[in-house]
């Protein structure tokens, strides 16, 4: 196509497709009659529009079976996800509601105080040293009574769920 014909390009397609505004049709027709390269474009575009449909294909024999197998996996994953979601919401509701929070905090503090009381040396007042050591988190976790308390288990469950959530997002 000649450089001077470039401005006609889109009009030629619109002309062949019958979507050129009437006031521009005459101008394009005049040019096409006088220009062999543009008249070739018009003929070529008509052939493009008349290209036969490619033959249709049918899904293969395996198609349906493969799809329903894939879908079964999706369903299973959805169910597992929903199960986890339920646990997460139960646990979260318990620990984020003010009542649940203060209840568990109170429970933990109670267990902590009772433990210190039980572990105190006989006939001695609570030594300053032990209070400090007990404040150390490692030791705190090593105290069997506390480790086995329900409150700490819940605390770990929440941590675990949060890590899972971060994994999913990450």
């Amino acid at each position: 196509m000649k450089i001077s014909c470039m401005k006609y390009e889109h009009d030629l397609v619109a002309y062949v497709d019958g979507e050129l505004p009437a006031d521009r049709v005459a101008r394009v027709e005049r040019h096409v009659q006088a220009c062999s390269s543009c008249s070739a474009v018009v003929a070529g575009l008509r052939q493009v529009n008349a290209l036969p449909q490619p033959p249709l294909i049918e899904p293969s024999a395996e198609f349906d079976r493969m799809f329903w197998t894939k879908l079964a996996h999706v369903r299973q994953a959805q169910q597992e996800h929903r199960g986890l979601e339920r646990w997460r919401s139960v646990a979260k509701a318990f620990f984020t509601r003010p009542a649940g929070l203060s209840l568990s905090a109170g429970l933990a503090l109670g267990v902590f105080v009772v433990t210190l009381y039980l572990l105190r040396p006989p006939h001695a007042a609570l030594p300053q040293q032990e209070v400090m050591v007990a404040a150390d988190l490692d030791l705190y976790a090593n105290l069997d009574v506390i480790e086995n308390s329900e409150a700490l288990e819940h605390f770990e469950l929440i941590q675990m769920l949060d890590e899972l959530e971060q994994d999913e997002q990450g």
Partner: protein
Amino acid sequence: MGAVLENIEKQHHNDPNVQLMLRFQGGEEGAFRKLFEEYRGPLLNFIYRYCQDRRIAEELTQEVFLRVYKSSGSYRPEAMFSTWIYRIATNICLNELRTGRYKYEIEFKGPDEHDDSMQYDPVDERTKVKTDEQMAAAEQQRQVQGALEKLPKKQRLALILSIYDQLSYREIGQRLGCSEAAVKSIIHRSKLALRDILKKGGLVN
């Protein structure tokens, strides 16, 4: 604003396939099966014309339906069902094939490695004889497909919907997610480009 949205949704409520999708949303799995059976053939052909690989076309078609299934919870009838599902298919064609595990095969497939299904013809299957005319038609089909594959992806998709499915610019725009004016421009360019390629192969003027 809410009222306008509601009106738009009401328009599409008359579409029987939107109804099926809503029934599926309500828990009726049989409605999903009906949609699957109605659309698997057309979608497979749409995707196949685009990617020219039967196995990949089947996998991508299945992916469309998996996405339909997964999106049932958030589905809202904001368009005719066919517009919506073809839009999913278009996104998959444009994105999966670009970034996914299919990239290698599509980009490095040689021009003569098209699978035989292109030339599949039930008449031939029965007679096992091909007339000269049929052979010529098959050869032309192969060359046109080769030419289509040279077009940029969006041009190819738009052109397939225009010359094979005879859709209007508006319908193509809805499926591709672009404006009518943009589609018009894409189609014009793609027709000129296709004509150029086919002319070099001596197929058209």
